């Protein structure tokens, strides 16, 4: 265990992670909220907001070749049009599952989404969005950050998701379904830790480290993540990474953009966050909370997988096609089809103690 003294309190933190000088202070954090950075505003979906899952299923069933009358009959009989979570016990839910076709045979859309009809659901058409300029260009699909004014912001994931009601959010509101699922799974998945080391948290060089904890977060009396808990760091080197950073006027940005991998281990929602061209922007509130946006290019299939459970309130087949089409980087050398999508996620992190643990 390595201990770094800070002020009147003892801070246990990862040592040797690039403390920038003799006076360096290390602040430990645990991520308390994490969700796609989607900046929604009225009129940002020219094709209109997408239908909720239950209604979209009916449209999708017809598109998949089911008889329109039959679909209407199923819908009339269905107790719950909104979800397939109840299983596939009746004809309608089986049909929803089997919207894909391979060689004329109906197969599961969830196992074979590539064999489904693209419902061409709406994507965000707005000019404004949150994230980072990952390629240094201001292309046709790029956003403009409404706060910083930065142009060329690459966040195609926001375009793909932003017209689904359950993914809509703002700078002050988290997307409903995704956030709900995060709150649930974070009670059991290993916590994600961040530490920032700097001489001066207003201006100057800094380093930022990420790691996975051995423990999950705990909740306070208001069901918010409990600050100042102590987390043991998982020694698995795959989930540990450190970036050089710079703080200017209290805003931290990383100055190197190597890949990030977060082995969260949550098999349903967030198995593994992998980014290339990683960008990070962090601000610190007076009460010690870190508000951050992290972005980069993510394998688009993983972005889809990460959002799977939250898609309970959206048609997953529609999500699949939207994200696939929005992929904007990492072309396959053979096919030229993009394998990665530009993304930005927002997260908040509350103060926490890190304790390094041996393997």
């Amino acid at each position, binding site marked *: *265990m390595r*201990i770094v003294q800070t002020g*009147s*309190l*003892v*801070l*246990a933190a990862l040592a040797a992670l690039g403390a920038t000088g003799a006076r360096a202070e290390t602040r430990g954090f645990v991520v308390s909220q994490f969700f796609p950075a989607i900046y929604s505003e009225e009129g940002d979906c020219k094709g209109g907001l997408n239908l909720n899952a239950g209604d979209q299923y009916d449209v999708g069933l017809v598109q998949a070749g089911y008889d329109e009358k039959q679909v209407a009959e199923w819908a009339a009989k269905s107790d719950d049009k909104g979800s397939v979570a109840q299983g596939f016990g009746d004809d309608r839910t089986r049909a929803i599952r089997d919207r894909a076709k391979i060689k004329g045979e109906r197969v599961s859309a969830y196992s074979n989404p590539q064999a489904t009809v693209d419902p061409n659901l709406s994507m965000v058409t707005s000019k404004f969005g949150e994230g980072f300029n990952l390629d240094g260009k201001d292309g046709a699909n790029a956003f403009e950050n409404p706060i910083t004014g930065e142009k060329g912001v690459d966040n195609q994931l926001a375009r793909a998701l932003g017209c689904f009601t359950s993914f809509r959010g703002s700078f002050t509101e988290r997307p409903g379904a995704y956030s709900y699922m995060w709150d649930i799974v974070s009670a059991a998945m290993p916590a994600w830790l961040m530490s920032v080391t700097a001489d001066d948290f207003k201006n100057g060089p800094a380093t930022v480290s990420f790691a996975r904890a051995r*423990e999950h977060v*705990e909740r*306070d*009396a*208001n069901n*918010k993540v*409990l*600050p*100042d*808990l*102590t987390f*043991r760091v998982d020694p698995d080197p795959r989930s540990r990474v450190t970036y050089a950073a710079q703080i200017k006027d209290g805003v931290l940005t990383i100055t190197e953009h190597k890949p990030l991998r977060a082995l969260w281990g949550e098999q349903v929602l967030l198995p593994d966050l992998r980014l290339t061209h990683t960008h990070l922007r962090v601000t610190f509130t007076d009460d010690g909370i870190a508000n951050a946006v992290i972005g980069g290019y993510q394998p688009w299939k993983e972005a889809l997988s990460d959002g799977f459970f939250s898609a309970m309130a959206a048609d997953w087949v529609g999500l699949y096609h939207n994200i696939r089409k929005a992929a904007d980087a990492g072309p396959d050398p053979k096919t030229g089809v993009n394998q990665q999508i530009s993304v930005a996620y927002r997260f908040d992190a509350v*103060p926490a*103690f890190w*304790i390094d*643990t*041996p393997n």
Partner: protein
Amino acid sequence: MNKMRQIGSTLRRFALLAGLPAFALTASTTVAPSMAASEAASAAPGGVVMRRLTPDQYEHIITQTFGADVSSAARFADQTREGGLIAISASRTTVTPPELEQFDGLARSIAEKVVDKDHRDLLIPCKPASLKEPDDACARQFLTTVGRTLYRRPLTPAEADARVKAAAEAARTTGSFYDGLAYELAGMLVSPSFLFRIESVANNGKGELDAYSKASRLSFFLWNTQPDEALLKAAEKGELDTPKGVAAQVDRMIASRRFETAMRAFFSDLLMFDEFNALSKDAMIYPRFTQQVTKDAQEQTMRTLIDLLLTNKGDYRDIFTTRKTFLTPALGSLYSFPVPKTTPNMEPADWIQIEYPENDPRSGILTQASFVALHSHPGRSSPTLRGKALREILLCQRVPDPPGNVNFTVVQDTTNPQYKTARERLNAHATEAMCTGCHKITDPMGLALDVFDGAGSYRARENGAAIDTSGTLDGVVFKNATDLGKVLHDHPSAPKCLVTRLTSYALGRVPSNDEKAWTDGLLAGFAKEGYRVPDLFKHVATSPEFFKVATAAK
């Protein structure tokens, strides 16, 4: 069976077995008169005290007699505090009809488990000739054996005969030997002889307890539970009538691990931990004060005390200054202190022993949540409550209650920009003449602790203003909470108060003026031996005064 008839039956049984005319109720009675133990005691010769079992004692006895899987967690109604202790008010505690109903339900539940198929072979030392009929010999064997344990004395022949007869009648009525036995066992468990520690005077003219009462007094004082077989045997053989015999038992009991239970019970009573049952904090203001913290805060202080005073045989006065304590992750969050879930050797651990660094604002039990949070309001700290608690609990000084017509508006409004800190608000409040006197004796110490908010988290500022923690205690200046701990460490009233509280706890009453020489002697010995609390327990328990019964409090 109709519930009311059950209760009426129990009450009748209770009254008859207690031999108390006040309890001679009719079957139709649904509201029983409450019985004050002290009223019953006053009828007994020698003015002995008669104390009701505490919930912990009840649970310990059932667990030790029948096993943990038979025991049920007992929660009794809140008890009042007298002379700073529930142990004193326990001798004046009443059994109200709702409580009796609770006792009755608990007793029936325990009795049913004892005779059920899973337990009877283990707990009942004989088998009846027939499962469906009475068996007086077997019933007598069980009831007299268990009765000796539960009553902390042998049953009298009349009691034993009555129990066996009643068990037989119940067996005939129910058609089951074991149901009959359970009926009678439940009766024993609501008997005053079980629920109350009824002491008897020896017929030797010395004005002291009889041998079995001595055994009970020793056992509840040093173990917080019933006497074990060795102690009952010592009583039976007359060994407790000699100082040597008592000393041998006291040494044995203090060396036992059960002694920690007694120390915990005493300090829990002294520090008013029963009030945690009613403690609530505003979650919007103190979100870190979770249910887990409520539990851990008490245990933190207990572990600190046991480690210092018992494990390390430390100086009592160091409870005000020690930097060593134990924390859980939940407390670590409250205190902003790193607490891993493993020991330094990476062994999993719920509690980690830590030592605050020298520059940390925390030292001593007064800076722990069990004190600062308990003696605060739901949404704000209270220097006055803390100062009052400190004076009353730890220095045995009486602080008058506030008069009824005080305007607290200024103190309660923590958002008034004119008075940013508690000190400023109290200063404004103290301009009212009727308030000044009391606040002078409570607030200075409480203000030293105001760097700990109403939940126990550290803060250097309130509403942006620095918190001034300086003050004086009985003429001695301190700068902050750590300094205050040092002043208390050297305050002559602190050890004196502990002696007063411990002797009161032991006797069930405040020692009288006639017993001043005894308590003075204990205090002198306490000081001479380095303020070792286990030694103080020993000296109290081996004192002749511990068994005297004729002296009434004055």
